[in-house]
């Protein structure tokens, strides 16, 4: 049990990832699918941020008077912070592109339901064949 509490952020990240994944697969509404994708992204940020944490340490921002004799054990790991930054940028870009695709789909089919869109497309295909 003590292991569980020591690694609580990591467990939470994994469970959040699962919630996002099931939402991505099960939701019919396209916008809800994207919300699921964003939950997955967020869980990865949580995991990375947790990995960079060191107990009893502060953010890696040194004071000017410390220059020359900085102790790295006093600060958290800056590498995961840079990785999270990259992840956020990519997630924002992907979300924007997907949302604009959804706007276009909604203009074409007047629905956000993925099943209905597939149904309409199949019907169109059958009509084209005739």
């Amino acid at each position, binding site marked *: 049990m003590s292991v569980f509490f020591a690694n609580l952020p990591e467990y939470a990240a994994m469970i959040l990832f699962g919630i996002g994944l099931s939402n991505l697969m099960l939701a019919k509404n396209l916008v809800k699918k994207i919300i699921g994708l964003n939950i997955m992204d967020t869980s990865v940020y949580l995991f990375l941020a947790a990995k960079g944490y060191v107990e009893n340490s502060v953010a890696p*921002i040194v004071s*000017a008077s410390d220059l020359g004799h900085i102790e790295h054990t006093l600060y958290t790991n800056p590498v995961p912070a*840079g990785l999270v930054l990259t992840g956020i940028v990519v997630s924002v870009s992907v979300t924007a592109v997907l949302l604009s695709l959804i706007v276009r789909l909604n203009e074409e089919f007047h629905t956000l339901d993925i099943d209905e869109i597939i149904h309409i497309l199949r019907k169109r295909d059958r009509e084209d064949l005739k």
Partner: protein
Amino acid sequence: MNKEKRDRLYAVLCTVLTIVFISVMLFTVEKMPDLGRADNPDINEVMEFYVEEGPEETGALNAVTGMILHYRAFDTLGESCVLFVSAVCVFILLRIDGEASNDTLVAIDRRYEPTDDPILTQTFKLLVPAVFMFGIYITMNGHLSPGGGFSGGAIIGAALLLFLNAYGLEKTERFMSSQLYRRVTTMALCFYAVAKSYTFYTGANGLDSFEGAGTPGNILSAGLILPLNICVAVVVSMTIYSMYIMIRKGGFNK
């Protein structure tokens, strides 16, 4: 098999897959080293170098900023380009055809949104200057305090959206045209690429007289990091604004 049965089977399979996936991941996490211990494998010489040598070499007191805008500057250039490319994709997907007149663009403005609310509009008018100033502060102090180009740019982008909703489309588009967007974003990206390419070309030691200027802790220090932060902030804020305006009405004014 009819459609309902197939849907139910799909839902059950998805749930089973998710449960199996979460179980495997939880099992893996249980085997990982405890969080927060100073002797974890990810607290290694890389982190040690970035924290102990980084502020002295780069002049940026914020080790994260020094890392992403000095040692890994090309990675950040790539991130800015990802934002730019995604903005271009949104343009391609949502742009109203070239022949559409300004009247069409105004007519389809806010098809999916409620119109102005007086309480919100007045609150935005109060908030706009403060939010702009906060965004600029975060950008300019990126090498000294938490923040930097990405967070500052996101705040400036939010301030632009607040301005748009407070003062209306007509007043905003007097200065926020597609021409401004194109020129400013391209210039910021080009300056970033040229400046950083030059320093890398000269063995990451170029611009010595410039990079070494200023005492760490002042705003004007840390060499190229401050200009690069401003470039990143410009790209991010312009991207956020352009994405909003494309989704809202399908184009800048003509």
